[in-house]
């Protein structure tokens, strides 16, 4: 019952916001709903819920990690929004309604145990996130929305084709329920499974924004508001990563793990090289963070492809990436709200006017590029470690080189923002307490995770690694 309720109640919320009420009421409602959601998800860490809907909805450790990430992101974003909308005059009805739907569908992604249902949920997240990108309706955001909608829809259509190919491969099982496919994995038709894996990877990889399917990312992240970008970079892309993990489970059981791992490693490396090249000439902070997101997605698939400790690193990185994205994009968003731009020639010398925002920007730089003592450092180290353990020495070298170049690329831009010759903020808004508390708490969580791994988290991560098997 509890899982279904977790999916249905936000949908009710999406309808409630259409009732006549003050704009602030909708924001507080979203925050209350996110808090409730987070509390329920926290209780799942103590006791896992039973499967529902004849095994269609199951919360396994992998789903639990994603669900916790999603829940945490919504908690941060909804709190941030209370501060953000104090300075914002556009209506927020469609915006909050879409956010409620997104919360519901991302929950469904985490708990769905049927490959078809998983597809439906991921496609729905695409549709509900598109209107969020064009919240400030102007030429650029509309263009970004269109690009996102079209590229991701076509990508996801390929994933649907892959799902059907999987159904053919599992013809004897007569179902796409994950346990049934895994149990009958030895009798899967390998040719069809290979075809299915390729289509599923391209489709979900497109949604995840892996290079070379990342073309929508710089535009969409560059023009959407900070909170939307956080949900996309930390939530939506990682939902697609869960789909890739499910594929990995099937591949491992049916003996195709080498085939799948080679695809994952190749794309992972490409997703590190491409941002490293493009970041060096980037002038817009949000776009540079978008390329950093491509890099983090590359690290996730690399970890999954390398196996062993790499998978542990990738799963840990899911949490860290989401928290780092909160710090990076919310700071960039609050800065864009003050300056009306996020381009380097219009925003400089922020430290003289907004010292607190500046500290967050520097923290975002360190967290996003994986510096000690933030937790991203540990997860990236685990992934590089996996490359060395599996004797991929050249690979480890390329990863380290790309990470170094990416650090230089982002640091160059961020330092120009912070210490450059000051420009006057166009809109000149004051520092906001809600906004600062949100970003600070995410940074503190990332710091704590970097210094101390809680025992329950460690246990769940190990259980999740055991599920993937490789």
């Amino acid at each position, binding site marked *: 019952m509890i899982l279904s309720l977790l999916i249905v109640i936000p949908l009710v919320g999406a309808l409630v916001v259409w009732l006549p009420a003050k704009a602030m009421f909708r924001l507080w409602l979203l925050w209350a709903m996110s808090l409730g959601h987070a509390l329920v998800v926290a209780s799942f860490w103590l006791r896992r819920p039973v499967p529902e809907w004849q095994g269609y909805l199951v919360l396994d450790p992998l789903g639990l990690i994603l669900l916790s990430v999603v829940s945490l992101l919504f908690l941060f974003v909804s709190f941030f929004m209370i501060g953000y909308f104090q300075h914002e005059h556009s209506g927020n009805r469609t915006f909050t309604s879409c956010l409620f739907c997104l919360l519901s569908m991302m929950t469904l992604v985490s708990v769905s145990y*049927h490959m*078809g*249902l998983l*597809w*439906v949920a991921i*496609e*729905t997240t*695409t*549709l509900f996130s*598109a*209107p969020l990108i*064009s919240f400030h*309706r*102007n*030429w*650029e955001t*509309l*263009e970004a*929305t*269109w690009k996102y*909608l*079209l590229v991701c*829809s*076509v990508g996801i*259509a390929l994933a*649907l*084709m892959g799902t*059907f190919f999987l*159904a*053919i491969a*599992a*013809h004897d*099982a*007569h*179902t*796409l329920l994950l346990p049934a496919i895994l149990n009958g994995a030895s009798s899967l*038709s390998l*040719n*069809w499974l290979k*075809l299915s894996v390729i289509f599923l990877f391209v489709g979900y990889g497109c949604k995840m924004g892996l290079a070379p399917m990342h073309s929508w990312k*710089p*535009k969409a992240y*560059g023009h959407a508001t900070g909170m939307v970008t956080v949900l996309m970079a930390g939530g939506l892309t990682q939902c697609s990563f869960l789909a890739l993990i499910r594929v990995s489970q099937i591949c491992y059981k049916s003996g195709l793990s080498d085939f799948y791992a080679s695809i994952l490693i190749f794309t992972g490396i490409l997703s590190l090289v491409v941002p490293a090249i493009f970041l060096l000439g980037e002038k*817009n902070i949000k*776009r540079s963070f978008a390329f950093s997101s491509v890099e983090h997605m590359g690290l996730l698939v690399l970890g999954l492809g390398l196996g062993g400790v790499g998978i542990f690193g990738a799963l840990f990185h899911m949490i860290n990436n989401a928290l780092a994205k909160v710090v990076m994009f919310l700071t960039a968003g609050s800065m864009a709200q003050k300056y009306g731009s996020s381009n380097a020639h219009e925003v400089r010398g922020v430290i003289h006017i907004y010292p607190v925002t500046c500290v967050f920007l520097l923290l975002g730089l360190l967290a996003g590029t994986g510096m000690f003592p933030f937790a991203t450092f540990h997860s990236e180290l685990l992934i590089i470690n996996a490359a060395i353990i599996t004797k991929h020495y050249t690979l480890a070298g390329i990863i380290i080189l790309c990470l170094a170049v990416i650090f230089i690329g982002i640091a160059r831009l961020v330092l120009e923002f912070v210490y450059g010759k000051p420009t006057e903020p166009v809109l000149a808004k004051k520092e906001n307490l809600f906004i600062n508390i949100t970003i600070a708490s995410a940074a503190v969580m990332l710091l704590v995770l970097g210094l101390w791994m809680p025992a329950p988290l460690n246990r769940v991560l190990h259980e999740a690694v055991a599920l993937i098997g490789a």
Partner: protein
Amino acid sequence: MMSWIDVSCILAVFLALSLLATHRIVGMIKIFALQSFFLSLVPLFMSAGAISGRTLTLSLVTMAFKAVLAPSILFWTIRHISMRSEVKPILGFGTSILCGSVLIAVAFWISLSLRLPGKLVPSLILPCSLATMLLGFMTMVTRTRAITQVLGYMVIENGIFLFALSLLDAMPVFIEMGILLDIFVAVFVMAIVLNHINEEFERTRGSSSRPKWGESN
């Protein structure tokens, strides 16, 4: 009933090809509606005589979503943004047909090496669905208007739908309905975004501050 399925499959490919070669947008939408109509009949042919409530529902819902509602939304959009024909297609009539035929040949060639399990071996479903998908992709990349890209996307979805029909037993009804609803909502959202783009275009007409489509960063 196998022959009727094959007839529908061939019609689907034929219509996708003519959609590729049509330049009037109204005509394209009509062709798409016709293609969806034929595809929605396929589940009825597949059940071989005894038509169950499930296939009937699937057929009717498909017809409603794809052959009636989606084209109406597209018609509404072009009426709103007052657009009738393609400005300048990248490829002309002859070239489009030629490239399309090559794609169909490629689809048949690929499907030679893939064997469908079970009773569906002799049918034309696999090559025709691949051909429809490829033609849809071709429509998407060779057209410059946003609405023709939506049509291309819908043709791809039709190709996938044709393929999905061979797998009726693996998918429960509610997931099939979810997939159909998702695709319908996708068209709906795309139409709304198109409408917003048009409003913004009208609003900023003549102002020099507006960057050209595809050239902003």
